[in-house]
């Protein structure tokens, strides 16, 4: 119960002020297109140079927590996912906002985030030693199978045709191979200088989601205002809480999947939201409603991507290995104060670590409170006339994708992908599987290559990729997942989902 002992430290005036600053700053920066949680935390590092270690870490912890949730704001209101974690949130969240239920979507997302997030941090507090072993269990072969499992999700994710879903995924996987390959350093498919550095995920995300929406608004033409007006429905906060707790299945699937995937080094929070979304869709009796503004979609996605925050720090705090880019930045925040993470961290620097973990707990709650306060007001974004909205989203997309690496090439890639995606969407393809392919491609390839190299030097490839209970467990899940998709396809239920809703 050490964390309770140090709880008081979070509430001293300076520390609490920093906690507020981190939470609010994190929400704003997280909602800014192009700023991933990693960049947000990296931007906060210079401020911690001047602070005491304890204060610096409180600021970073609060910022990390709230940027992940802040990404949901732009995902829901503008359909620009702030980071890969928020992709799944756009699928139902933005549809809800378009129907005037933006306030409800935001409230659900913040409450689900906070619940998932608190669960994740409690895992970090109570189960760290156990989880550390689990984080090491994923070697190249296991990560390869995990990526393949992700690929099997592609066909069923937000797509009305399995073949077109898989084809979208293949396009994404191919886009991921553009540029220098990570291991051999060979150049692949560099047909224009803009892609010589490969396709960066964040600009690609912005383009694939935001640009089609801008063009769709153009396509509606210069219409009278009265035809387009959306009445933004108010939504009582109490009802939002009741709704979240009534949808226990989505909430528990999201939280569980987020916690497990967050723990695996290298995969991190990028795919937690998408996998949780897909799984709760498959299990739900109302799976046809997913993608049409179904609250369960928002709840599953957001609880998953905040649940991964706590567990993603386990490898860092216990083994001194950063499991995600954001954890690597936090490692920097610890190192500048001469604090080395590792098994002795909790005994040597309890006055730093526990307030840091507590700041994430309190940060989750503060984030939820702020989120609920602004939700009703922010939902009015849906009332902005389409002409203004199109211009705003276009401007944000350009600035956001440029700011990632200060690169014009990224802006060109963003626009080219966005243009292509607009036409593809009109022919039954969708952006989510494409992005999933883009994210999973490098993970699958690099781990396959590394595994093959280790295998060749030791036991041989068959033995390497097909030994061990974890490998087999993942293989079985892959087979079940594919079988399930085929079964669903044969039952022909899937053709109706999306088109009916948007047509």
């Amino acid at each position, binding site marked *: 119960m050490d964390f309770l002992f140090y709880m008081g430290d979070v509430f001293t005036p300076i520390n609490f002020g920093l906690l507020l600053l981190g939470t609010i700053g994190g929400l704003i920066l997280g909602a800014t297109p192009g700023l991933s949680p*990693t*960049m947000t935390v*990296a931007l906060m*590092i*210079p401020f911690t*140079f001047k602070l005491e270690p304890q204060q610096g870490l409180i600021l970073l912890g609060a910022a990390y927590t709230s940027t992940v949730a802040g990404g949901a704001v732009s995902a829901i209101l503008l359909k620009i996912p702030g980071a890969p974690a928020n992709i799944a949130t756009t699928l139902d969240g933005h549809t809800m906002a378009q129907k005037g239920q933006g306030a409800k979507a935001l409230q659900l997302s913040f409450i689900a985030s906070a619940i998932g997030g608190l669960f994740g941090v409690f895992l970090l507090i109570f189960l760290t030693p156990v989880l550390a072993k689990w984080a*090491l*269990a994923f*070697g*190249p072969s296991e990560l390869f199978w995990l990526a393949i499992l992700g690929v099997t999700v592609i066909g069923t994710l937000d797509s009305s045709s399995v073949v077109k879903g898989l084809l979208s995924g293949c396009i994404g996987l191919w886009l991921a191979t553009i*540029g*220098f*390959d*990570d*291991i*051999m*350093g*060979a*150049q692949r498919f560099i047909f224009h200088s803009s892609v*010589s*550095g*490969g396709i960066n995920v964040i600009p690609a995300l912005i383009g694939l989601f935001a640009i089609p929406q801008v063009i769709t608004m153009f396509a509606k033409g210069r219409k009278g205002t009265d035809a387009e007006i959306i009445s933004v429905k108010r939504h009582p906060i109490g009802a939002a809480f009741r709704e979240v707790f009534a949808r226990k299945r989505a909430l528990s699937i999201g939280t569980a999947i987020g916690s497990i995937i967050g723990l695996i*080094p*290298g995969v991190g929070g990028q795919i937690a939201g998408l996998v949780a979304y897909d799984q709760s869709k498959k299990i739900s009796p109302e799976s046809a409603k997913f993608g049409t503004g179904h609250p369960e979609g928002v709840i599953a996605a957001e609880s998953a991507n905040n649940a991964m925050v706590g567990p993603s720090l386990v*490898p860092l705090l216990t*083994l*001194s*290995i*950063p499991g995600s*880019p*954001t*954890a*690597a*930045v*936090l*490692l*920097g925040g610890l*190192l*500048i*104060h*001469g604090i*080395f*993470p*590792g*098994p*002795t961290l909790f005994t040597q620097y309890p006055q730093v670590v526990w307030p840091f973990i507590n700041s994430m707990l309190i940060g989750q709650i503060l984030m939820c409170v702020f989120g609920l306060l602004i939700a009703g007001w922010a939902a009015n974004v849906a009332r902005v006339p389409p002409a203004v909205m199109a211009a705003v989203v276009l401007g944000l997309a350009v600035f956001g994708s440029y700011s990632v*690496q*200060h*690169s014009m090439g990224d802006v060109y890639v963003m626009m080219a992908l966005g243009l292509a995606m607009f036409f593809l969407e009109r022919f039954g393809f969708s952006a989510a599987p494409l992005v999933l392919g883009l994210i999973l491609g*490098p993970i699958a390839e*690099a*781990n396959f290559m*590394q595994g093959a*190299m*280790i295998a*060749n*030097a*030791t036991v041989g490839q068959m033995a390497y990729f097909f030994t061990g209970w974890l490998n087999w467990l993942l293989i079985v899940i892959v087979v079940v997942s594919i079988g399930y998709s085929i079964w669903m396809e044969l039952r022909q239920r899937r053709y109706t989902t999306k088109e009916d809703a948007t047509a």
Partner: protein
Amino acid sequence: MKKWIAGAALALTAMTGSAMAEGHGDYPERPIMLMVSYGAGGATDFQARIVTMTAGNDDALQMPVAILNKAGAGGRVGWNWFATQAEADGYTLGAYNVPHFIAQSIEGGVDYSVDSFEPIANWGADPAVFVVAADSEFNSMADVIAYATENPGGLTFSGAGLFVGHHIAALQLEKAAGVKLAYIPNNAGGAGAMRAVIAGEVLGGVNNLSDAFRAREAGTVKILGVFDLERNAFLEDVPTMMEQGYDIDNASVNFRGVMVPAGTDPAIIDHLAAVVPTMFENSRVASRMAAGGSPMQIMTRDEVIEMWAQRQETLEELLAGL
């Protein structure tokens, strides 16, 4: 000490005053950008953020330095951009990693070579070390090489990629010990390579001294040897490769420093070359670097030019056989 540095900085400012008169009197008049070709959170990024934290001080550049990460393909993406697209206006600095960029330019397929860049100053030198998991049966390099001799090509060990310092160290070890090893490049950089060692996926690994030092503090690895000419102050108890009988020099040591694109105004280069080393010497910088376990080695522009030329020669020879 502080007074001495301030004094030196003043003297240098006075010395460079004449150069500044030629139309660059106000340089720098806006914030400066430092491109790092590795992602946020990596060792290079982390150190670059520390060594530039005092840039805004009156005795330094008087303008803040903002870090810009252009990560990908072991640094090739960032350096390609720096060589071909970065503006040579003195406001675009880059961080270099030697031997990485030199080895990559020798390997080919990139748009840069040592002639594409003008060094300003060096801030750090991070030697490669050989690590094994804490529960490994290997206790010295002799054990490792004995295993490799028995199982040619069967000793798996991880490193941060191909044509980076770790790979150079691996090649040197193979050559010096006369054995065939299985070097497994990791796509997740040094942190991923270290994880592979700790998790027992590979039998050993080459990694950065700073990261290995931290991992040893955490009790997860043993460090068997340093790929450098002398023992390191952070690891007084770990012998060098030379001491253990392998003829390996410091070609794999990861030197980190600041450079500008070729074609930058010589007056600006001179100004930076005079001011930047004193910025690195700031006591706040030194204490932060020491706290993080990052070894510093400050070198002036002339010393770096010489070091680059030396590396170019050694690496050409070493990589010729590939």
